[in-house]
């Protein structure tokens, strides 16, 4: 009889893991709480670093998961989890029982809830939006203010909810700097008359072709970069937003009026992941993401034998890293299934 594996979460990581497992002859139950798979990939329009359409990556993932060995359960959550040595069983929200020889947790991340940074006015001022809201505008091909006008001056705030002790997140989300650069370019493309300003503390361009994209933003698109953390945003009578920042390189406070303010919200451990962590007794770290067994050679292993991690449920990652991490999880699972004592 072929071995069975339960994959929890149908984002990039869960889909890649399920696809690779089924290729290796494993029977997979893929559990996704939403009504469709894809996770956050569905929220993005064009991807950094090469700005291909996100639907191309989704097509690839749909392709590898189109397999008889994969049983997809959408709108499904786990209500009970039992482990008995090398045997796992779960009960779903619909009362269905599933059993497995191993489990892959791929519950992903949640976007930081920007309303928590009250000083930026998200949810208060209409023209303060997040990077995700902007992706939706790009997808619709229409970038407009709440009154229907086209924005002329646009500010982008880095590190919203990351690297910020005030919200309890000390870590860097790793990919919001490059997202800011990508979105700044796209804004200039869509609105050639606009001026775009990125307000950053550090430009973290540590991925393949990120720095090149940064250069392109300066050279080809005239995006402005100002080094300073925006301390607050307020609204003037004419609906313009007034932001306050120190231009730290000029050493002077700077006030600017913008029409649109885009917040680069960071990544946090998902609520879905927290639920699984509690239910299964899986350890989390200080940053609240799942704690991996070893940071160098055990980043897919958990504190429970037979339960493995894939993707951003362990740390912020881009899609390339997520896919690699999911493949590594599969190699750990295969190794485990081969050697496990019954």
């Amino acid at each position, binding site marked *: 009889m072929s071995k069975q594996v339960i994959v929890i979460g149908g984002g990039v990581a869960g889909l890649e893991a399920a696809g690779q497992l089924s290729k290796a002859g494993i029977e997979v139950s893929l559990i996704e709480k939403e009504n469709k798979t894809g996770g956050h990939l569905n929220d993005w329009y064009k991807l950094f670093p090469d700005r291909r359409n996100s639907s191309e990556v989704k097509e690839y993932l749909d392709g590898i998961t189109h397999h008889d060995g994969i049983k997809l359960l959408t709108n499904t959550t786990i209500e009970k989890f039992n482990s008995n040595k090398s045997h796992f069983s779960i009960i779903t929200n619909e009362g269905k029982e599933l059993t497995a020889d191993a489990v892959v947790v791929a519950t992903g991340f949640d976007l930081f809830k920007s309303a928590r940074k009250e*000083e930026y006015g998200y949810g208060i001022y209409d023209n303060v939006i997040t990077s995700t809201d902007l992706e939706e505008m790009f997808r619709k091909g229409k970038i407009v203010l709440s009154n229907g006008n086209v924005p002329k001056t646009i500010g982008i705030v880095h*590190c919203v909810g990351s*690297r*910020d*002790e*005030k919200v309890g997140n000390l870590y860097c989300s790793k990919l919001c700097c490059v997202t800011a650069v990508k979105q700044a370019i796209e804004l200039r493309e869509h609105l050639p008359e606009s001026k775009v300003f990125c307000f950053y*503390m*550090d430009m973290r361009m540590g991925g393949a072709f990120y720095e090149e994209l940064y250069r392109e933003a300066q050279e080809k698109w005239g995006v402005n970069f100002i*080094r*300073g*953390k*925006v*301390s*607050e945003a307020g609204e003037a009578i004419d609906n313009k937003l007034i932001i*306050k*920042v*120190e*231009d*730290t390189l000029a*050493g*002077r*406070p*700077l006030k600017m009026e913008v029409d649109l303010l885009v917040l680069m919200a960071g990544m946090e451990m998902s609520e879905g992941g927290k639920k699984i962590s509690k239910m299964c007794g899986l350890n989390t770290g200080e940053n609240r993401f799942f704690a991996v067994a070893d940071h160098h050679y055990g980043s897919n292993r958990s504190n429970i034998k037979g339960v493995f991690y894939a993707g951003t449920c362990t740390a912020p990652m881009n899609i390339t890293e997520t896919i690699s991490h999911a493949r590594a999880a599969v190699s750990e699972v295969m190794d485990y299934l081969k050697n496990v004592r019954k």
Partner: protein
Amino acid sequence: MEKFGFTISKGRQIDYESNDRRIAEYIFEREPSFRLCIECGGCSATCTTGNLTQFSLRELHILIKRGENDQVRQNIRKCMLCGKCTLVCPRGVNTRNIVVLAKQAFQKSDEYAI
């Protein structure tokens, strides 16, 4: 000989070896969060004094750390100790206390007494 009216000015260089960093050491010991500053300027952007006069708390921090004490002494008086800056710091630096301690340190040192 004709006089050209220039004076020998102190170079712009921060002379790291000869600068006196005792004020900084005094603060590090009593307020370890002083080490956590990443120079983001959040504090100085929100500071009322900084918006009205030539004063930047962020700059003050780095000048203390480099031992540029003359410049610090000239500026530190401008802080009203309102504590607004402490509310925004992403690194949890106890910004207000740093000014308090710096003033204390100046008072204790003969050389720099204010």
